[in-house]
């Protein structure tokens, strides 16, 4: 394993070559779109212990999170959620990396990493709180060692880097992993995070999901070189992997985690994938995207690909398919129930947790608003009436 800080590992991309939107043979791939396992002299090592059972379980997780995504989109269409950011097409990138992490690693992600959150063991109801408008976060980050969704593009990369500096100070071998998209690579924060991570050799993995679109802006607007090639400018080794190949993603993530745990510093992973759905349920990709592109990427679907591999290995039995379908249906119905039975937040909750210590300004406003609500006799009624206007 090379720890050369200026070059690439495994996937050798000519410096500066290629359109950042193009995918070709110049990325790490262990399973072809047809489901054929191809060997790799360096990266086979990183998935050598993945058993048939584990392949089946990866298939299950990817299927389940796609089902979660479909269910959440339906909940939004039915008015149960205000918004939802779909991950359709990015299941391999999220499950392959998410399943590589240890419990004591810490994830700082964007708002689209619901599959990673699933791997971290998030309560499915918690996953929906933000999107139903019931909370600004959704869960206690320490309960699953994953920060709640970050909406400011790229801001979380600095949090991961700082967290990693803390790990370093503690003498621990955990790793901070930050997820962001191709659009985020243009943000100052992401670039500053890479400067800091390199300077302090912090144990952080920069996991960039290049899904080709930042709402309506194609990745070529963000970068004239492949995103992975940017890392070398910071002295950070990078990997460009087929983000729709769960084994390749897993291999790359494991390598990066191992390097960080051993004191080898940060790694940048570009997982080349595609956002098959809209940016969020409020978006309309037909205004800016060619339908042919969607068709091309549908042919590289991450779940079909893994199914193809399982089939070749004789693992894709009717029993497995039924079992995975049942699991997905159960999870989806649990999530729907959690969504529709979520307790309504109460008016005075808006004042909670602004500070952790008493604050005279806030206490006065809170007191005045409580009096205002009380003037209606029925505080809850007063608020719902206001809300309806």
């Amino acid at each position, binding site marked *: 394993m090379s720890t050369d800080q200026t070059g690439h590992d495994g996937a050798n991309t000519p410096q500066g070559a290629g359109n950042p939107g193009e995918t070709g043979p110049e990325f790490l791939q262990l399973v072809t779109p047809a489901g054929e396992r191809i060997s790799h002299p360096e990266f086979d090592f990183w998935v050598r212990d993945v058993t048939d059972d584990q392949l089946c379980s990866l298939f299950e997780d990817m299927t389940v999170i796609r089902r979660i995504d479909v269910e959440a989109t339906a909940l939004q269409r039915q008015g149960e959620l205000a918004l939802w950011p779909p991950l359709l097409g990015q299941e391999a990138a999220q499950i392959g990396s998410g399943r590589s992490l240890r419990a004591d690693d810490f994830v700082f992600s964007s708002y689209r990493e619901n599959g990673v959150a699933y791997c971290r063991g998030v309560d499915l109801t918690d996953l929906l709180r933000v999107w139903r408008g019931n909370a600004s976060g959704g869960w206690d980050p320490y309960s699953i060692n994953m920060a709640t969704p970050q909406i400011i593009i790229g*801001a979380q990369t*600095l949090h991961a880097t700082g967290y990693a*500096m803390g790990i370093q100070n503690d003498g621990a071998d955990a790793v901070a992993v930050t997820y962001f998209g191709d659009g985020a690579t243009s943000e100052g924060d992401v670039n500053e995070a890479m*400067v800091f991570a390199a300077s302090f050799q912090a144990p952080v993995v920069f996991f960039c999901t290049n899904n080709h679109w930042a709402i309506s802006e194609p990745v070529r607007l963000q970068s004239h070189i492949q995103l992975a090639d940017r890392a070398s400018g910071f002295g950070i080794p990078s990997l460009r992997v087929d983000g729709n190949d769960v084994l390749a993603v897993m291999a790359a993530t494991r390598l990066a985690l191992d390097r960080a745990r051993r004191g080898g510093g940060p790694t940048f992973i570009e997982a080349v994938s595609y956002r098959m759905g809209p940016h969020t349920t409020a978006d309309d990709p037909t205004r800016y995207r060619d339908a042919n592109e969607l068709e091309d990427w549908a042919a590289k679907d991450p779940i079909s690909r893994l199914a193809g591999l399982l089939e070749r290995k004789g693992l894709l039995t009717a029993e497995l398919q039924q079992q995975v379908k049942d699991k997905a249906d159960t999870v989806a119905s649990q999530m729907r129930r959690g969504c529709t039975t979520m307790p309504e937040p109460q008016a005075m909750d808006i004042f909670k947790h602004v500070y*952790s210590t008493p604050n005279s300004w806030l206490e006065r406003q809170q007191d005045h608003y409580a009096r205002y609500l009380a003037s209606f006799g029925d505080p809850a009624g007063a608020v719902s009436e206001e809300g309806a206007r």
Partner: protein
Amino acid sequence: MTQLTFARAINAGLRKSLENDSKVVLLGEDIGALGGVFRVTDGLQKDFGTHRVVDTPLAESAIVGTAVGLAYRGYRPVVEIQFDGFIYPAFDQIVSQVAKLHYRTGGAVRMPITIRVPFGGGIGSPEHHSESPEAYFTHTSGLRVVTVANPQDAYTVIQQAIACDDPVLYFEPKRRYHDKGEVDESADPASAPPMDKARVLTDGNDVTLVAYGPLVKTALDAASAAADEGISIEVIDLRSLAPVDYEPVVASVRKTGRLVITHEAAQSGGLGAEVAASITERCFYHLEAAPVRVTGFDIPYPYSKLEMHHLPGLDRILDGVDRALGRPNSLSGLEG
């Protein structure tokens, strides 16, 4: 008691915090070997190591953003922004992350981050080195904003800010860094007055004069000059700007009926406006005159040869006092 300069008093307070809590770490530009451009962190890296007193690359957003990550990990980061005018690249991290994470996570994640900002003018510097950006932050829920006006407070309040579980912006009046004062280093910050309490500095019956940071000294000078003319001014050091401790101001204005507030920052949308409005709401029937603001102008901080025109000095403050008292003043005869 020891005689310490303002800068040494902050240094002593930082040292105390580093000694008392292994989770305290300092981050900033040039704070290590150099000891900061104002020497406030002098000697700390040598004594506590490069892991606790960290010279960072020159990126303010990253300094604050990594402090957020460290706080997530259980640390108490103390960040130095080298000059007031350099804080803006970190604005998003301060306003959207530091200030809101506790709220966003329903109280699960605390952000005990202290952001030290040398602020204010009067040192003959070029642009971006003399600003008073406090109101940007007092307008942001989730932050606490404090200022200090004497070495004892500098020593005590920095320790209180670091010990606070909420994020604190700690504004240091840079033109007072070399002023000396008595500091009791044995004083326990936990039993000192809390940092969000204002302090009445002089007892007076005619006018309430509210100041903070660098202008507290100017206000005291103005009060003693006024005393020579038989005018009795009650000077209040606001100390905390978010939240403002209105109780002593209300009590004072109920006595004097007249309020003057002074700050270096631009007038419109500033602390003076906030204090004037709040005191008017609470003391309307006790006021004998409209509250008066004596502040910097609504201009970019001017080039240094003219900065004394921008900064409220003793005479401008006294002119404001005359206005509050209805005595002849520079605006006599003007309406509105």
